[in-house]
């Protein structure tokens, strides 16, 4: 409700995170409202009135302490609900790695992104790979693995419409997944400070229908480009 009113939801797990956000808002919102209500009503109700002494309460009396103890029950229950939901979403997005139909390589460096697409043979690291700068092309409704690398410092591959974020670490290749659910062109941002150009490395993710994407791959494969040049 809240997040999808602010930005599109373009991956299969975006809806899970939207829902988690809403549930947390509700479960922390209720205690917050109750506490604020009590807080302000006490301030107004117990304003100093001439000659009237305050009550003497030590805070160990059962009649008062029981309210504090009772308040813990909903808090613990809410905590458990939030933990269970959060861990479920986390498991789905970060721990589980479902079978992919295609894999892309994402390479971050100061201050640009390179994307390696598998080309017509749909296999990475072969001669027909398509490398682009600051523009990632994917097909909707296709499950992708990404292999994330950095050539220098930490960066972070963040696609807000997917609700996806992952640090890129020099010396490691981190594998994750996403599955776009709609077509369109969206921002990719770097979400880890990486030097003076950190705010200046915007990239795009272009999500196409599978036909359009196939056509794009066809046109941009190194063989097609070479053939075009030869003519």
């Amino acid at each position, binding site marked *: 409700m809240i997040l999808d009113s602010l930005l599109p939801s373009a991956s299969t797990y975006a809806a899970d995170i939207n829902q988690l956000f809403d549930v947390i808002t509700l479960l922390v919102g209720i205690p917050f409202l109750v506490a604020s209500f009590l*807080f302000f009503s006490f301030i107004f109700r117990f304003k100093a009135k001439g000659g009237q002494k305050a009550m003497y309460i030590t805070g160990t009396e059962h009649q008062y302490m029981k309210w504090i103890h009772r308040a813990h029950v909903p808090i613990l229950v809410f905590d458990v609900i*939030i933990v269970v939901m959060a861990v479920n979403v986390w498991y789905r997005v970060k721990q589980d790695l479902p079978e992919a139909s295609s894999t892309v390589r994402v390479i971050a460096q100061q201050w640009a992104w390179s994307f390696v697409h598998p080309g017509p043979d749909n296999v990475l690291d072969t001669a027909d790979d398509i490398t682009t700068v600051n523009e990632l092309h994917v097909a909707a409704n296709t499950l992708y693995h990404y292999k994330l690398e950095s050539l220098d410092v930490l960066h972070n591959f963040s696609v807000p419409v997917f609700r*996806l974020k992952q640090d890129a670490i020099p010396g490691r290749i981190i594998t994750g997944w996403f599955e776009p659910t709609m077509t369109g062109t969206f921002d990719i*941002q770097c*979400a880890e400070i990486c*030097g003076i150009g950190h705010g200046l490395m*915007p990239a795009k993710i272009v999500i196409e229908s599978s036909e359009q994407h196939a056509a794009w791959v066809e046109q941009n494969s190194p063989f097609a480009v070479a053939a075009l040049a030869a003519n």
Partner: protein
Amino acid sequence: MAESIRVEHAAHHDDHHGHHEMSFLEKYVFPLDHKMIAMQYMFTGMFMALIGGFFAYAFRWQIAFPGTEAPFWGQVSPADYNSLVTNHGSIMIFWVAMPVLIAAFGNYLIPLMIGADDMVFPKLNRLSYQIFLLSALIILASFFVEGGAFGGAWTAYPPLSTKAEYSLTPLGSTMWITAVALEFVAFLLGGINFITTAMNSRAPGMKMWDIPMVVWMIVIASILFMLSVGPLLAGGIMMLFDQNLGTAFFDPDRGGDPILWQHLFWFFGHPEVYVVLLPAVGIVAEIITVFARKKLFGYKTVLYTAIGTGVLSFTVWAHHQFIAGIDPRMANVFTVTTLLISVPIAEMMFVYIATLYGGSITLSTPMLWALSFIFEFLIGGITGIFLGASGNDIYMHDTYFVLAHFHYTFYPIAIIGTYAGFTFWFPKMFGRMMNDKLGKLHFWLTIIPFNTIFLPLFVLGAAGHHRRIFDYRNFPELSYPWMWDLQALATYSLIVMLLAQVIFFYNVITSWISGPVAPKNPWNSNTLEWTATSPPPHGNWPEGLPTVYRGPYEYSHPDRKSSDYWPQNEPA
């Protein structure tokens, strides 16, 4: 044991109280008196806060009005932007929150509230300030060296922070980590003093449960600090070596691991947030009990929740690293511990709200600050839950939502807590009363803009605005007109808030010079500092140290007919 330290300490003092003719230098520049050292820390911290605030103004201007010249700064370049953001954060935490909340209030209040004539180790105390001052000078100087100040964020993740070819600030990076490491040393020395003094120098009759809450809180905070800072100090030295001696602790190309730094940093960094939280919570306890004329609701409960939070705070650090490339299974553990911490923190907040129940509340300036602390911190606490929930943090991490969250925790602590304590103890510190009207004007002109700065940033963060971005015009999805409006609202609010601080300094200076003379105990408070003259002389109670007969919060006691307070030192 306790006795013998006390005796030695008293002897030592007699000796230096003997020289009544102290030179200007001895008294103000190299003092041993805990109150003067406290003032050194207080005013150095406030000065640094002005610098940190000015930095915020400069980079907020660039965010809201990119490409235009910020008045009094000029065009903010990307390099400027990064070093302003980095040093704003570093200064506010290490050179404002720490010196003011721990060192200034700790130094001022501990001896006075436990009925001692000074700290146990006055010379260590003086050394602590001197090292601190040196660290502050180094961080400020880093703006004037070749390449400029460090710009890799206050978290200083390597390899950006360790390799000059990436950061482009060869000297700035080294000065940053040197300054931070020295600051840690200063607070290690201070911490030893606080803990030892509170445990050994208490007035006769003051039992454990008679210690005022703020003293407990500063002691617990010092213990947390001393337990957590060791690993980071070691990490800081590794970083210095990586930068300058060619070691490779954090260099992945040569077998090092950049994530190691993150663990060392956050193993300290999360407890650190409670290190500054606890003194503020203690200050608030002193103020709400006085101005509600109420006993603190559940003294031991507050103490146990503080200890509980402190212990748990050592188990949650990786919630800053959920998506940093740690083993994804670890996130589950840290989600559980992080949400568990909400239990003692919530309890603490409930207890404070319960303290107001049945009170006789006067909304003086210090009380307004103390109450606003409770409310604003509540917002900070509940928004932490959004981030502690791993699945949600995949999206929220490093957005303005995180930024707004921690400003709703740190701002109440460092700014609201400081103003609460300062306006409350001002009569004791300077022997004059502050102007209450100006105090309230300053309060409202600070607290309203504070909310209009950071509430919009929650919305922007939820809409996907990342932190530390120099120019949002590069991102079409972050450049809708409503987003620019919220950014501008935040920046204008900041300017209003900064200008409002003039009222505070005007009030301090005029009250100090010509405010009404303060009596010993203007707020009818119970604790011992109010039995000394305002301001207390060197040695605090030259007529003899007080004796304690009861706890600090016996307000409106039914057996006490003559008044609604019962000073700790009054015989039964």
